[in-house]
């Protein structure tokens, strides 16, 4: 184990990334401390999601460095980065991105099953998290039969089931109504603070960003402003 409790869980230095001719990140640097809630905000197309994907090791930025939980992501191959995400990182995207043909219980248990955990133990942990997120649907329900809010709750349960040290959430309330969104946000913040996990929250909603400890505002792939909120 190379990560230390006091070291930042995430460090990005001069990260640049472009999609063909569109520059998404133009030299972004940031650090996230353990247990910190960081909101990354900004208008559409400013590079928020690209920043989150680079931070989580989903994409490889074209230049700059990303250190996640003490690991230099550039030095890890695809399988190693996936294993790191699977074991120590939780990810929630805007539309849940659940595996369409697996019932919700298996969707939540999936990271544990893929990691070789005992099936019964994985299902027990998944069921506990589904209860915890307050899913008011049968655990055997296929994702297609869930509402947007229910699917997001399942995605949150899946992100938390492994006990991650850092959680990345990309517009987690974007597909939900105001009240449902508020509940989901409380759930994410509560779970992160209870575990002492860092939460990186990408949002274009100022109300959502206001829940964070710190807000980083992006524009055209650059950090435009940074504010400590609490």
């Amino acid at each position: 184990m190379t990560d230390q409790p006091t070291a930042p869980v995430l460090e990005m230095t001069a990260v640049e990334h472009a999609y063909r001719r569109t520059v998404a990140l133009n030299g972004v640097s940031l650090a996230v401390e353990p247990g910190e809630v960081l909101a990354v905000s900004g208008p559409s197309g400013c590079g928020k999601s690209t920043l989150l994907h680079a931070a989580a090791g989903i994409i490889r930025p074209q230049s700059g460095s990303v250190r996640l939980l003490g690991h230099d992501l550039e030095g890890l191959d695809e399988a190693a980065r996936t294993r790191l995400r699977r074991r120590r990182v939780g990810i929630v995207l805007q539309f849940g991105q659940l595996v369409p043909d697996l019932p919700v219980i298996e969707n939540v248990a999936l990271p544990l099953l893929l990691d070789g955990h005992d099936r019964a133990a994985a299902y027990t942990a998944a069921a506990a998290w589904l209860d915890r997120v307050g899913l008011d649907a049968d655990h055997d329900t296929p994702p297609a039969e869930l509402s947007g809010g229910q699917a997001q709750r399942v995605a949150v349960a899946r992100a938390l089931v492994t006990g991650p040290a850092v959680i990345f959430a990309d517009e987690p309330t974007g597909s939900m109504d105001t009240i449902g969104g508020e509940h989901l946000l409380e759930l994410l913040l509560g779970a992160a603070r209870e575990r002492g996990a860092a939460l990186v929250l990408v949002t274009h909603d100022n109300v959502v960003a206001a829940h964070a400890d710190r807000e980083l505002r992006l524009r055209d792939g650059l950090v435009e402003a940074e504010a400590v909120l609490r």
Partner: protein
Amino acid sequence: MKPSIALALARSSSAADRWRALLIAVSTAIAGGLLLAALHILRLPAEIAAGAASQMPLSGSQQDVDLAPYLTDSGLRPGVVIGALLLTVPVLALTVQALRVGSVARDRRMASLRLAGATPRDIRTIAAAEAGGAAIAGGLLTGPAYLFLWLLVGVLPPPGMRMLTTPDALDLLAWALLVPLAAIAGALAGAVVHGSAVVEPLDVRRRERPSEPGRASIAVLMAGGALVLAGIVVAPLLRRHGAGELGLLVMAMVGLLLVAFAAGPRLVLACARLLGRRHASEALLASRRLRADPRSAGRVAGVLVVCGVALGIEGVLVAELLFDTGFGDDSGFYLTGHAMAALAVLVAATVALLTLLVGAADSLLDARRPLATLAALGVDERGLVRVLALQLSATAVPPIALGAFLGGPLIALLVALSNGDQALGAAVRAFPPSSVTALVAALVLAIVARVAARLLRSLIRAAVDPENLRVA
């Protein structure tokens, strides 16, 4: 990842996945059944091939008195074996097409698995388990498929016309060996078919392949052409040395297959370009859809070129039989043989068309949003049926017509060369019957393409539903 988890994740419950698994299993079983039949015929005792012992026991209680002369005649038996093996080609093309069924939904599923923590290796394992599992089922079904084939050609025809003797222990052994082979082949095919995709947690990137066939295709085309040409050159030499024509026939067949499969996508692209020059918007849309992915249509076109060649040969031989009085009482024997060969070609063409239909249905499901957009822009359902009919006929009609038109004279040329006859005259004489065959085949396939497009009307109706404008 534990094997049990890989198997559980490979067992998808979506309708498209079940349909894909069923198609893979059924087509593998049919191909396996044909292979077992070919092996069984190859194992028949040589004595009956000489025609000297038509009452000799084969094994145990089996008697060859029931067998058709196409098996007991040493010159004709290899043709039956080659025919059975050639029939597996369109069936295997259907298997490859089946592996691609529902690929858009599958891509989304695989990306979700990656996001949930599956490594690229896990994804490859799941893909291999998925295809391999369906192929094992197909391998296990090979036995029943072979029994069905035996009932069809070994029991139902009248005595003297049966093509298979009673299955024996060696068939059972071949079946047992075929099951693991099918599983390995299925897993490998699954890995190859999905190997062009890089599955990432957010999407699936397909390695960009040029839509135009590349240098490899030219090389295959030239190699095939060279084999056919070599056949033409070697034929007189073989005759001079008294050697049989089987080697020449096999060489020409392999050459022809290579040419057909390399030419298939080119033919489809050429037809797409011609369609694109027409003024009708449906022709333009059909042209664009074909040009976007000429490969799967090209594979079917390749199979249909081979079917066309076979039909062309049949046309030439039947014409010879009808207009040449030299056959006397034997004409019935030959006509029956040609009818059986034509039936086999028909089965192969039907399977090829089924492959085309499966691909078209799948692309309709995958392209719901663009089709709904077209409908919103004013292209009505009837227009889209016409687009599909044009797409299907552009893929099916020219290959079979071209194959029939050129195949007959080419084979006539080869046969004349190997017999030491006037080659050019034989080729020229073959053109009229080949042309008639090409015309009839083209007409039949054009009708079938229209009917097939109408069969897919309900899918088109579902695809243009405005609700699909919201589909990702």
